[in-house]
Every structure is written in C-alpha cells, then in structure tokens.
C-alpha cells in the first residue's frame, strides 16, 4: 500500500472523525474538571445541536456553515437551562446522583428530537460531494471546515481560559474549588459559563458529524463512548488532552481495520484507553485524579 492511499483513506478520515470526537471530548473534560462528574447526556445534546442547525438550514434556507453559530448558541442556552432546572439542586449531593440525572436528561433530549424532527435519516444538503484532489491528497471542503473549525474553537477556548478573567476563574475552580470560592469567584457564573461552552461545543460536534455523514436521532448516543474514551485518554480536565485524545481515538479507529477484523473497530478506542491507563493512569497529559 502506498503512502498516499494510507493518508487518503485512513489518516484523513481518522483526523476528521477525531476532530468530531475532540469537540465533544473537550466539553466532557471541562465538565469533569469544574463540576466533577461524568455527563452522560453529552451525546444526545450533540444530536440536538445538529438538528437545531438543520432546522435553521431548512427554515432560513442558508448554508449549513452559517447555521452553525445559531446551533452553538441555542444548544449552549439549552445546556445552561438543563443545568438550572435539573442539575443545580443536586450540586451538594454525591456526584453519582447527578450522573444518573444526566442519564435521564439524555433520554429526555433524545425524545424531544424524535418528536420534533422525527426519526428519518436526514442530511443538510442532498447529493454527494466528490473530494478535490490536492497533489494526490483527496480532501473534501467540508473535511477542511471540520478540522479548521475544531482548531479554531479549541484555540479560542484556550485563549479564553488563559487570558480572560472568567477563563482564569474557570481554571481556578477546576484546580481548587475551595480556594477559588474563598478568593471570591462567583461559582454560579463559572458553572453557567462551563455549561454554555460545553453545550456549544456539543452542538459543533454533532453538526460536523451530521455534515460529514447523516443526521439520525441516535447519532449522538453512539458517539458518547468514544468521546468519553477520548476525554479520559487525554487526561481529565485537560482541554488540549481532550483534543489529542479525540484525534488518537479517531485515527486509531480508522487505522484499526488494517490490523484487526473490521467488526472490532468499535473496540479500538477502548483497547487504546485500557493500555494507556495501564501505562499512565492519569491519561496522556497527566489529568486530575478525581
């Protein structure tokens, strides 16, 4: 097999898939870091974001990429709302109670998607797109958009976390909640911000999955486990780790068919994860131990 083939059919799809996982994994890792629990409704929120974008595309007749910001804002708002209504009063309780609550939210969000948009497979634009040829590299526009958008969104998030006042507050909450509270950080605002960001990233992840394949009501749920694997792989609480983890999981899944029967493709993310945890129990970039 020549190198170009390897890049075209294994590496590029892997990077695109990895970018989609990464967008979700960053949200998961943020929630892990600041609120300290596993948020199981993440996949279904991504589905919701993808379908909100679809609604914007069909009702306003605009291009999907223009619809993305709408979906990001709307899903961020939904995430904040869910937190206010369902999670907030459980904050003092053991974290496992909130994990269970998020499972219930996953069912509720999915059911809303199924009632509102139905269960048929849908796409943003009909037909197929053949890739462009760049010196032998076969890449589609939407794949470039996916990777660029991931890099841009995560880059902005990193800048926000390191430079802005609220970003620093979020990092402080993540590093030492007690100390952060003592120094006068408004816990409520930090939590709201976290949900807004995580929800928006969710929408982006669902949107790009829909753009590259199709929209289905179960699409997010199927992504949940690889996204979690990516977040843990990178190290809990590490944004750049989640990106790295997402890319590794995505590329590994695509590469795996070279070595193992394709029915075991889905196991690849976990095999890597288990191996990684054995070698580095806190993930690639030394995440927190919660």
């Amino acid at each position, binding site marked *: 097999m020549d190198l170009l083939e390897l890049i*075209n059919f294994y590496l590029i799809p*892997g990077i695109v*898939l990895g970018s989609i996982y990464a967008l979700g994994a960053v949200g998961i890792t943020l929630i892990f870091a600041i609120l300290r629990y596993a948020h199981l409704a993440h996949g279904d929120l991504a589905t919701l974001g993808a379908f909100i974008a679809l609604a914007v595309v069909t009702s306003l007749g605009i291009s999907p990429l223009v619809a993305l910001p709408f979906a990001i804002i709307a899903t961020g708002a939904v995430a904040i709302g869910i937190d206010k209504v369902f999670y907030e009063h459980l904050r003092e309780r053991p974290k496992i109670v909130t994990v269970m609550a998020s499972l219930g939210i996953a069912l509720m969000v999915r059911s809303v998607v199924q009632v509102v948009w139905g269960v048929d*497979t849908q*796409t943003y634009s009909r037909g197929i797109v053949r*890739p462009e040829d760049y010196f032998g590299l076969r890449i589609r526009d939407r794949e470039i958009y996916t990777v660029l958008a991931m890099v841009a969104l995560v880059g902005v998030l990193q800048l926000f976390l390191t430079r802005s006042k609220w970003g620093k507050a979020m990092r402080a909450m993540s590093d030492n909640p007690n100390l952060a509270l003592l120094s006068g950080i408004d816990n409520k605002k930090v939590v709201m911000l976290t949900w807004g960001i995580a929800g928006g990233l969710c929408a982006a992840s669902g949107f790009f*999955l829909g753009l590259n394949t199709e929209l289905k009501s179960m699409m997010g749920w199927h992504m949940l486990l690889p996204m979690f694997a990516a977040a843990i792989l990178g190290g809990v609480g590490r944004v750049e780790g989640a990106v790295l983890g997402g890319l590794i999981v995505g590329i590994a899944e695509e590469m795996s068919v070279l070595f193992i*029967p394709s029915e075991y493709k889905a196991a690849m993310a976990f095999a890597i994860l288990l191996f990684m945890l054995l070698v580095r129990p806190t993930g690639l970039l030394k995440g927190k131990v919660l």
Partner: protein
Amino acid sequence: MKTKLIALAAGLMTATALASVPAKADVKIGLIGGISGPIAAMAPAMVDAAQLAIQQVNEQGGIGDGEKLVGVVGDSACNPQNGTDAATKAVNIEGVAGIVGPHCSGAVLAAAGSVTIPASITLITPSGTSPEITSLEDKGTVFRTVPSDDYQGRALARTMKEQGYGKVAVAYLNNDYGTGLANAFKAEYVDELGGEITQFAAHEEGKASYRSNLAELVKGGADTLVIFDYGDGTGLTILRQALENGFFDKFVGGDGMKSDAIINELGAENLNAFVASSPVGEKSQSLDVFNEAFKAVGGDPDAIFVSTSYDATFLMALALEKAGGDKAGAAAAMVEVSNGEGEAILPGEWKKAKELIAAGTAIDYKGAAGDHNFDANGDVPGTYALWEVGSNGFEMLTEMQ
C-alpha cells in the same frame, strides 16, 4: 415519598386498567416494533403499513360481526428486555388476539419464548430474519412473512451471476440480518456458482466513518460492492462514502438497502450503478395494489419491510376471521388462509375474503411481499426481484430465481 411513589404507580396502573377495558366489540392485535432503539428510523413506516391493513379491514366491514379491529402499538426497542415487556402487556393488559412483530429477531425469540408460546398467542413477525426462529419449538404459533435470510442471499447470488457480475466484495452489518444474508450469499456465490469474493467483512453500526473499511474492501480488485445493511442507517453512510471516494463501480444491496432514504439523500442521478433485491409477490400486481394503497395514505412503499408488515397484519386479520375470533385457533387458521389453495385474495380485498370465509370457501392470500405459503416451521419461501433506481424511484430490473 415512598408511599407517594407507590400511590403514583398504583394510580397509573388503575387508570390503565380502567382505561383499557375495551369497548366490548373491539378485536385487538399487538403491533410490536423497535420504535426506539437501533432501528428507530425503520419502525414508524412498518407500523404505518400495519395500520393500513387494519384500516382496510375496518372500512370493509370489520372483523367477525362487524367488530372493529384495533392495532395496539408496543415498543420492543429492538432488545429482548423491552420486547418481552411489550408482548406481556399486549397479551395480558390489552388482551390482544395475536401479535404482529416484534421487529428484531432477538426480541422475537424472547417474546415468543417467554410470552406468546406459553400463552398460545399467534405471533407473526414481518422482519425477524434469524434462522433461530425456524427452529423454535413453537407449537405452530410463530410465523413470519419475511423469508429466512438464507433464501434471499442465495437468490441474489444466482441473479448476480446471471447478470454477469464478476469479482465482488461483501460488507455486512454485524447483526443477525447482515450476517445471515452475507453467509448465505457467500455459500451460494462461491461454493455453488464458483464466483469470487475478494473481501468479506462485517462492520458495527453507528460509526461516523467507514472509509478505511472501504479501502480494505477494495483490495483484491473487485469492482462490485455487495452491501447487506439498512439503507436508512449505516448502509447509507457506506454507500455514500463509497460513491464519494470512487471506491467501487457497481453496488448491490439486499432488501434492507431498497430504501427511499438512499434516493432522497444521495440523489437518483448518482445511483445508476446501484441495484437492490426486495421481496415481491408472485402475482406481482399484489405489490402494485399495495403500493397504490400505501401511497394513498401518505406512506412510502419503498421503505424497508413495509410490504411484509402489511402482509403480516392482513394475514393476522384473515386468520382471526377464519378462526371466528378464537385466539387459540388463529395459528391453524393462519396456515389455512395462505396455503396456495383456494380463491386468490389480493392486498386490500378484505370484503371479498370475508364473504368467502363466511361461505366456507377456501382462500389463499397473495401478499405484496410474496405468496406466503407457510411451511411446517411457519416460514415462507420468498419471491424476489432485483430493482434499479430510475427517475421515479425504484424500478424492477428482473425477477430473481
């Protein structure tokens, strides 16, 4: 709080019990489908097709002495846990006279094993294709209108050979449907007909990318990809990615791939090298009759397993009519109304069937998805046709032998 909860649960149950006392004259059948869960995209159309059969029965004089036939929809979520739960509720709470479904083989096996066989309720599944259903010890109460995978896989292999297909690669969904079809296809194509399969690989559902799978499949130089998957699920993703990347020249699908979603999402202009097999009545006007009727109620006749769902429901109604509303006799009656002997009944001809049954004349249902002459195991031999994509959707290319 505990008492409140128990009170709530009890309240729900009493409300249910009160509300579910049927209007005396209704005859109920359970329509149990995988409405939530992995085949969520397929189930609604199947339920709609079943409801069409029920609607026709009611419009043409109802069942028995003009009683109303009612379909009670249940959700098997495509797993045995919910499948048995839904079947138990249908049988015991709703008091159904027969069950159409569940849709997935695992749910069929479990619902039959723990509910309908012990309770002597007739069950007919429109889409459970697993060979395990054949060997159930079911006292003759389990039927299906979809042929076992073995038949279709072999017929497809023979037809493809006739049509001059050469080296092929096979991609199949790793569940009972995909594996069954793929193995039958392989057995016939390679062992019987001497064809060549270069790659033979299963895949999991719900992944976002199958390009690497396709890159593996294309190794070996086959120009045709045979896909055994569902056209509104993973099958669509695979076909799209294969077309977009120019992986194969020709594509062949099983009946799961004959889905409107493929034309809608990929565009007919891109699908001129795509053919799919699908069951068809031997009197192929049966299928036309059904297609017209289903279109008239806003249904999509190209959706997956709709014709088998319709047939299963119509057969169940015929059997109940024949048995005179006797649940226990429905199974025997099911064989009688479709054993290849007697006056032919086409889809929708309920009134004619009813009169003939009343007169004691033998009838034979010729369904939209085949003649459904049940064998001793409650299975049907299939009749299949190969379809291509034309300007008005799927058009029949050739019958399959």
